[in-house]
């Protein structure tokens, strides 16, 4: 190929290279959620209550233990699974039983779930049980939420803050 034509060819191909790099570096644009939706995120990392109460060891039980292990109280390490239910506008939207983590099932139960909803006003009911010995749910929260388009609503659990929180 003659020199000038070769140079033009090179310029075009370098331009094509730059075009490919530049275009896919930011296009086509991506929209994570449609413009008329909002996002509810349920997330908690919470240690359920102990599966049973501590109990007094009997004298026979204590005698069977090594002298340095003779603690009078026997406290189980295992924690309760945490059950959570969410109703959205009166309809069950999510239910999950989060098992405690760890080999001895003595760690926190964790949940993460995201569900897009149409923006607007919604009635939200959240129920949570973290005690295997209790029936029903020992934490509840219910109310109307107004979700603007693109809004992220985080449902969390914080015992110190009173239980189920909405952010």
């Amino acid at each position, binding site marked *: 190929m003659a020199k000038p034509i070769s140079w033009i060819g090179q310029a075009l191909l370098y331009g094509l290279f730059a075009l490919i*790099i530049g275009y896919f570096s930011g296009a086509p*644009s*991506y*929209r994570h959620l449609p413009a008329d939706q909002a996002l509810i995120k349920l997330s908690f*990392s919470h240690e359920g209550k102990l599966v049973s109460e501590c109990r007094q060891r009997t004298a026979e039980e204590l005698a069977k233990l090594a002298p340095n292990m003779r603690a009078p109280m026997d406290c189980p390490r295992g924690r309760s699974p945490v059950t959570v239910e969410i109703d959205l506008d009166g309809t069950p939207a999510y239910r999950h039983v989060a098992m405690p983590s760890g080999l001895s099932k003595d760690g926190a139960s964790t949940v993460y779930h*995201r569900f897009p909803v149409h923006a607007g006003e919604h009635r939200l009911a959240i129920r949570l049980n973290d005690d295997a010995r209790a029936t029903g749910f020992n934490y509840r929260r219910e109310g109307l939420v107004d979700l603007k388009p693109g809004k992220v609503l985080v449902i969390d659990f914080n015992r110190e803050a009173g239980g189920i929180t909405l952010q």
Partner: protein
Amino acid sequence: MTMNPIRSMCNSALSTYQSIEHVFDRAFGAALNPWRHLGALGFLFFWIIAITGLYLYAVLDTSVDGAYRSINWLSREQWYAGGVLRSLHRYAADAFLLVTLLHLLREFLLGRYTGFRHFSWLTGVPLLWFIYISGVVGIWLRWDQLAQFSAGATAEWLDALPVFATPLIRNYLSANAVSDRLFSLFVFVHIGVPLLLVFGLWFHIQRISRAEVFPPPALAAGSLLALLALSLALPVASQAAADLSLVPGPLALDWYYLFWQPLMYTTSAGAVWAFVTGATLLLFVLPALPHAAASPVAEVHPDNCNGCRRCFEDCPYAAIVMVPHPAGIPGRQLAQVIPNLCASCGICAGSCPSSTPFRSATELVTGIDMPQMPIGGLRRDLERGLAQLEGENGIVVFGCDQGANLASLAGKDLASFSLICAGMLPPSFAEYALRGGAAGVLVTGCRAGGCAFRLGNRWTEERLAGMREPHLRANPAGKVLRIAWFDRGEEAELAAELDDLRQTLAAERLRNTNQIANSIAGPITPSTRLTVHG
């Protein structure tokens, strides 16, 4: 027998790829074709990223509030310097990934992942992960809506593995959850992983001698200018600042690094894990899949090896070491082949000074040779071919099994020899052919920069031009030597080149009717041109 459909698809893809490569040859010339320097271009882009990154690191405020502000400041207030460097940093990162993927694709299509090449292939696979990790984390450092989306998506993807006691996504649930320490971690990963990458690159090229770690200057300059022009024309800008209480709006997604995140939301985290794990495993097991048996490796004949080190210097895969000669002569060495590293290309035989056909030994044995195509056999074949040449303008063609197929050439004035690689040709064979009755010699093989064994055509060209040992000794007057490189599939172009040589020889004969090839007058002077790049 029907061809395996996967192999057939690969052959079709290879054919398409080679067509593209040849289009680029027309503009760049074979030697500067970027497709033949993809690995070296990767190095170039890496160094651009590293150098521009030094400046960005100096101005980056590694805190939740400061990260966005400091990076955005560069683009707004210092667009002419820091802004350009930022854009260059980002575009070079995209280019780095792109050329790396193309490099991988090219080597795959050319079947360069088995045998002696398996080490380079296997050490290249983890580098892809390093590139992705450092690139994705780099995007988070700007802490705009794109960073917010990408960091959250990555956390959700990692959380799909049941290994974290507390889900990583909790680090991005609300503004309160994001801490300055997190940004220190981002910086640590963004700088630490590229350091691992450098280490990995060093491993990757360990078994290649004279590895091309920088592209030819013209190609490097052109690539840098292209990215610079792009940086000025389309400067990289931050999107709106991250706000974890809102879903990010339309995003200018970097599809090179983040394509898998929309894919995850379209499918699932498990599907993306299956994809990347499957792809990685496939790349790792590829060298172990059934493939053609390895060719016999080079073997040294100690009685004919004088320890000159030329094979050691010329081996493209560092498969030859020099050891003390068993005869115990002080200072004398002997070449030794490392079988696992040997590519069986025969370039060592071409470099051996003992490979000259002018030696008087009845049975020519050279210092280092290929058992499947010994130099002695080549001399016998050449002598037989020369004896059978008809007409006054007989031509000898030396080609290689990787380049244009010599079997397609026809003519009673022709004797052709296909070597394992063009680099296997000892230059003295060209002189031997010219003195033995041929009026012209045509040397061919893969296009410049495209040698299947990396350096074969380069060494041959240098040896025939007298720039490399063993060099071509002399020019029988009135004879013509021509070099023309043609890839496999370019047999028609090779035939056209041969016809052109025939015409040149006929014209030469008309001019020099009284001069026949028996004077030794200096280096060979090409009649028209020495080298033709397809």
